[in-house]
């Protein structure tokens, strides 16, 4: 839950990138970090294994300017996607304000995406939050792989699998090339801010 500090005129907002392992969550944050290096004064924090997999989370604090006179600090997190890390995923979700679900568009990952979004729903429920009420944006990542002839899921299939009930914004993206990475982030930030702006008086 976002913390509003009236003394510093500051609000801290937590946005979590969720999704199956290897889907591109960390790559999203790395792209944002590179793209906005002038505005992000601190280092990106990553806790990973030797094999470069996210072990606990990545963390990137990001100042987006002021809203109603409050300085907004967006804290971007990723979760570890591997099934076995469910306990750590749940920890990262604590106090979450907005979610980007990064789906892997590769045809072979269809089942993994579906399981991961179910897992998100369950883990949110654990904090008495509903996936239908929290601000959430979908990202269909790795669209660049089509050029290499790798079979991808048609967007209609991704929409049907992941967005038929949520009916939220979705972006076809490539975290590697940066396509739609920033629009995804901007969308979740604006949706999240919209839910808290009434508290910034």
């Amino acid at each position: 839950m976002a913390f509003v500090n009236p003394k510093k005129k500051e609000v801290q907002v937590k946005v979590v990138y969720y999704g199956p392992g290897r889907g591109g969550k960390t790559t999203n944050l790395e792209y944002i970090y590179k793209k906005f290096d002038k505005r992000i004064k601190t280092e990106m924090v990553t806790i990973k294994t030797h094999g470069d997999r996210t072990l606990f989370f990545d963390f990137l604090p990001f100042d987006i300017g002021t809203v109603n006179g409050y300085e907004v600090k967006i804290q971007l997190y990723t979760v570890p996607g591997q099934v076995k890390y469910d306990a750590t995923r749940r920890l990262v979700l604590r106090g979450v304000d907005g979610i980007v679900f990064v789906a892997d568009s590769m045809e072979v990952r269809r089942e993994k995406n579906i399981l991961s979004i179910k897992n998100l729903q369950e883990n949110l429920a654990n904090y008495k939050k509903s996936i239908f009420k929290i601000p959430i944006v979908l990202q269909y990542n790795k669209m660049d792989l089509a050029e290499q002839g790798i079979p991808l899921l048609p967007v209609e299939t991704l929409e049907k699998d992941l967005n038929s009930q949520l009916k939220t914004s979705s972006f076809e993206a490539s975290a590697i090339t940066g396509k739609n990475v920033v629009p995804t982030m901007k969308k979740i930030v604006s949706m999240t801010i919209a839910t808290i702006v009434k508290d910034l008086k």
Partner: protein
Amino acid sequence: MTYTLGQEQLDSMEEILQEHLIDVGVRCVFLIDMAGNIIANKDNGKIKHDVYSLAALAAGNFGAVSAMAKIIGEGEFSLLFHKGKKENIHFNKISAEFLLITIFSNEISLGFLRLKVGEAVEKIKKILDNINTP
């Protein structure tokens, strides 16, 4: 959804941190919630740590240790202490939602620090009890 604390409450918490911890030689202290938000922080002005990253890591670290406690059938570990060559970090749980983190050098003994942290925690608890926690 958001939650907040009043200016007065934040002022008095910062005063407590200053008086009980910074003034006795602690380098840096911050009060965070378990989501990783910073509620209040104070330092001795000599060092500038990246407090937002520290808060995120501290909340994760404490959460991980609490989860371990549950697995081994221990209700919780309310204190955590990491010892370094020069710098040390001390975690003290204030309530289910809040944590006090203190960074101090070897010039302060752990016993003395604990005493001071204990005093500060008691006072802060009273302030936090009066708000709607997240």
